[in-house]
């Protein structure tokens, strides 16, 4: 982790209304790396990603992204920051009233004065990078889940962002589509010289792909390290999570009264 950090979180806490979600988070995302934030559903990892994306502001603590404290930015500052980022949403979030081509061209038309000819060349290059140049004229409704995710990826990198954020990029994909998206995440990060943050709970697909992993549980970072470190972390939660064991620090049974009492056997005994 010697590379300078592109995103730094210091002593961050966050609460929705009065319900605390994140507690004393500290992490640093080194420039040029692919970093995963992993944990169970509801552990706060997507909230953390939204704080890094400056879509949410910390309740306390600091989030410094691309050299700027997000809490100190006004609306124009936030938008300027976001132009240097790309984000892939869980189910793509493609604009359903636009073709694949128009989806990828969207940011170029909104934020640049490029001619339509130049935009066309750039869109085709982005679509070629994800293998979907031939699908340029299709509408999002005509795409499979994997294709939609790849188009969303092409859209996320439309303006060559320095930081790419992925919110559960592998959810709901078949094994082939999943392998394609995983390979693209790594390939695009390296070819663009970008930094990537992946929020996910898919262990098998993510660990071979990333340079560094943060594990979260109950709104806290409980372990971190390279994928090799993770396997010998010795943290019980991480071992249960990585191996997919049904019982451990995260119990199989939701807390309940005695089983015998529920069955009416305790009284009889």
């Amino acid at each position, binding site marked *: 982790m010697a590379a300078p950090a592109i995103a730094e979180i210091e002593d961050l806490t966050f609460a929705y209304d009065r319900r605390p979600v994140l507690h004393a988070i500290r992490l640093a995302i080194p420039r040029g790396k692919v970093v995963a934030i992993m944990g169970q559903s509801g552990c706060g990892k997507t909230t953390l990603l939204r704080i890094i994306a400056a879509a949410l502001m910390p309740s306390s603590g600091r989030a410094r992204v691309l050299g700027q404290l997000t809490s100190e930015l006004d609306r124009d500052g*936030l938008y300027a920051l976001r132009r240097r980022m790309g984000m892939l949403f869980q189910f793509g*979030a493609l604009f359903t009233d636009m073709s694949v081509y128009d989806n990828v061209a969207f940011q170029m038309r909104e934020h640049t004065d490029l001619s339509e000819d130049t935009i066309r060349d750039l869109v085709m290059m982005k679509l070629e990078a994800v293998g979907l140049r031939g699908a340029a004229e299709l509408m999002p409704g005509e795409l499979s889940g994997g294709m939609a995710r790849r188009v969303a990826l092409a859209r996320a990198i439309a303006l060559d962002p320095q930081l790419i954020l992925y919110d559960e990029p592998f959810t709901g994909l078949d094994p082939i589509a999943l392998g394609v998206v995983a390979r693209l995440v790594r390939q695009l990060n390296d070819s663009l010289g970008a930094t990537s943050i992946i929020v996910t709970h898919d262990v098998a697909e993510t660990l071979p792909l990333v340079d560094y992993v943060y594990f979260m549980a109950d709104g806290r970072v409980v372990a971190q390290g390279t994928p090799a470190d993770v396997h010998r972390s010795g943290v019980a939660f991480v071992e249960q999570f990585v191996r997919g064991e049904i019982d451990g620090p995260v119990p199989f049974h939701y807390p309940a009264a005695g089983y015998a009492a529920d069955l009416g056997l305790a009284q009889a005994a």
Partner: protein
Amino acid sequence: MRAALTHLGAAVTAGVWRLGYATRFFGYLLWHSGTAFRRFRLTLREIYFAGVLSLIIILVSGLFVGMVLALQGYETLQRYGSSEALGILVALSLVRELGPVVAGLLFASRAGSAITAEIGLMKATEQLSAMEMMAVDPVARVVAPRFWGGVISMPLLAALFSAMGIFGGYLVGVVLIGVDEGAFWSQMQAAVDVRNDILNGVIKSAVFGVAVTFIAVFEGYDAPPTAEGVSGATTRTVVTSSLAILALDFVLTALMFTGGNAK
């Protein structure tokens, strides 16, 4: 008793809070409406979806309302030997009241509900969040063109409704029943005033356009991002818009057609 009061207080507070939020949203929408005019192509697209696609229901409804007006009006007028005034009755009823009100109600059902559903679904499928993450303000890019598209469409639809209604009245009154054609048109021309009747009707339809379209975009933007949330918001758009049209119609009629303004 205490629980009931607490419940009532919470409901009132929530209502006031929502009204305040809607007012701030309206101000924000107006402030960020520049895109809707600088890139008028976006607004033209919404005029097509809200206005042009509503034409069939507006024209057909206008025709039948005019035909019914002529039938009912003739029945009453002939008792007093004033059947030649049928043109006045049909035109004034449509231009002053039925055109703006019925076209507004139809617009709320056809276009308002569609606007709410579209924006609500864009929110539920994270399209608005994606836009925000791309440093594009969804209020300026999505909401404002739909709002102004509706506001521009509504008076045009009301005018077409009235025109079609007058044609329906002509078909029944003149062609079917046999009222004198010259009297039908000339009395209408003499009695309908451009400022007091037509302009006031246009003002009414413009006010209804603002109310209906704002309710539609606000409900869509504020909808909980679930299937149930979007369906509830769509229903609220139709109900609230309809009530708003009827209430505003009373207020506007009281201001326009009473006292010294009455013809």
